[in-house]
């Protein structure tokens, strides 16, 4: 054993004495780099927050006064022109909510069942294909989903452009997000629960319905709400499939139905102030709706019995 090693082990390096390190001697350059990196990371986060604060700020300042007026929540734009102040967004809010509800009603069963298939049943080539296709569906641009439904609904089947066609396109975008989030949650359910259920002679489908899904329930709800928040702000399929109208409409299969995104799209090129005010108001309303769904989703997620 060399004396140098013994010395080193005996006397811990005093302050200022270079520490032997696999990364080289302690030097000013290394410290500077470390500090620079730290500053850059903090700065990056600061930069990333700027647009969020800026967008929320400008929408709030420019659209906030529209929302405090109760007319905004009770009236439609029926009979209002770009030149006139007044009218509300209730037709668009209602349309957005109706379409979101119908979209969810279609997507949730398909999405949850597909996730159940992938986690509880699927093995082998089919399951791998399904999983791959879910990923592809996640990546499909919303405008392509709109085009596909147009090609199917209008060109091939010969129907009109109605709200139901919009919900079909939105469901295409929502299903994959539900599949993925539900899948994650089902995977977190401990296998012991399933085994205990099987040991009691409970059939597999009842085990899934009464044990697995309820255990993961709030996590699944979170996924649905976040998926809903995502499709609510979608505009591209609506431009192709769901033209704007100024009046309240509730029929999914006949006539036009207004939504908040199409309301923004309708007047966004206007130069007149009353119309622009309404665009900012509709933007703020839409952002608030989406944020509320996001927050609600996260809140529900807190009660999840299984943690990610």
């Amino acid at each position, binding site marked *: 054993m060399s004396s140098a090693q013994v010395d080193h082990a005996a006397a811990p390096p005093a302050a200022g004495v270079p*520490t032997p390190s*696999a*990364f080289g001697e302690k030097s000013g350059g290394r410290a500077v*780099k470390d500090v620079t990196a*730290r500053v850059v*990371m*903090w700065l990056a*986060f600061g930069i990333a*927050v700027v647009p*969020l604060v*800026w*967008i929320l700020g*400008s*929408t709030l300042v420019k659209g906030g006064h529209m929302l405090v007026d109760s007319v905004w929540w009770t009236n439609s734009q029926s009979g209002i022109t770009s030149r006139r102040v007044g009218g509300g967004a209730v037709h668009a809010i209602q349309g957005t909510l109706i379409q979101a509800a119908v979209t969810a009603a279609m997507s949730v069963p*398909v999405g949850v*069942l*597909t996730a159940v*298939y*992938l*986690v509880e*049943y*699927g*093995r082998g080539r*089919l*399951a*791998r294909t399904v*999983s791959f296709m*879910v*990923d*592809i569906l996640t*990546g*499909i*641009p*919303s*405008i*392509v*989903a709109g*085009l*596909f439904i147009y*090609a*199917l609904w209008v*060109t091939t089947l010969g129907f009109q452009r109605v709200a139901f066609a919009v919900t079909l396109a939105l469901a295409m975008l929502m299903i994959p997000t539900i599949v*993925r989030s539900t899948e994650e949650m089902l995977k977190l359910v401990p296998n012991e629960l*399933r085994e205990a259920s*099987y040991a009691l002679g409970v*059939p*597999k*489908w*009842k085990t899934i319905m009464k044990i697995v899904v309820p255990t993961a329930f709030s996590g699944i709800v979170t996924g649905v709400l976040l998926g809903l928040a*995502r499709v*609510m*702000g*979608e505009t591209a399929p609506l431009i*192709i499939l769901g033209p704007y109208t100024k009046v309240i409409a509730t029929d999914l299969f006949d006539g036009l139905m207004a939504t908040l995104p199409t309301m923004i799209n309708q007047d*966004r090129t206007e130069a007149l102030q009353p119309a622009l005010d309404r*665009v900012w108001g509709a*933007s703020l309303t839409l*952002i608030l709706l989406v*944020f509320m769904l*996001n927050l609600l989703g996260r809140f529900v997620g807190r009660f999840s019995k299984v943690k990610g």
Partner: protein
Amino acid sequence: MTGRSTVDEDPRHPLGGDRASTGRLGDRIFGGLATTSGILIVVLVTLVGVFLLWQAVPSLLKNEANFLLSREWSPSGANPRFGILELAWGTLITSVIAMIIAVPLGVAVALFITQYAPPWLSKPAASTIDLLAAVPSIVYGFWGLNIAGQYFQPVLSGIDGALGWLPVFEDQGTSAKSTLAFAGMILAIMILPIVTAISREVFAQVPTTHKEGALALGATRWEMIRVAVLPYGKPGVISAAMLGLGRALGETLAVLILLSTLSANADWSFSIFNGGSTFASRIAQGAGEFDTPQKTGAYIAAGLVLFVVTFVVNATARIVIDRRKAFTE
């Protein structure tokens, strides 16, 4: 969001597969329903490809211009002439600009959240970045055009003054907020939450032993990140970038609102300070005039190209993720 697959044989699921099924009616119905839903998704994606192709082909056959290399876009009439060169360029350049900004920034933000932020800040910071994804695309576009765009004019003039002799940075006289460069910047903000979320997830999975090992050897925090965190997270960052790219390629409304379209006889320019169109923005623009099958077919052909490109990008991301799994498990 990373699309982890559950289909590989997993020793933790000894009762997986259908072995636990009793084979009774209830089990057969429920298992059948679940499998049908899975198959439905496969059918759906296949149908998208088939339908778009089926409706695009008649128009493509009638097209008198080269579909891939022409800049013209007049899909109606007896002699339709349309090509996607300009759309491909606009889509490519806006997405590339978005990636150049969003990937380094997203990785830095993810590192901030997982390695630098104090514990009390880490979670709120992550949620804040996630909220960027909650702002609808159309609001980004409207905000960019009316509020943020004016501040890009001096940036454009500055870059043009310094590097304007390069064709890429040549000032084309287009208003700064309507250029490909600014549309790319807005796209960067929109894909930032995706890049951050996925990078964050992989950085958080770096084994503590790797990090502590580096620190014990005398590494500074930055050196620890360079030798332990980044190499481990690399495949995750690559797939995050690909998924972000997939989103940027198909973004419609923000780009539609911002970009000024070029006139049919404008000179070709490689400048990022020029107007233009992307696949998605051109389709959205034409959405009001889908009156004849031939005209619609031309737009659907453009949509088909976009579908194929995003398919390839997303499939690549998926393969990269699966490779990483093979190494780490």
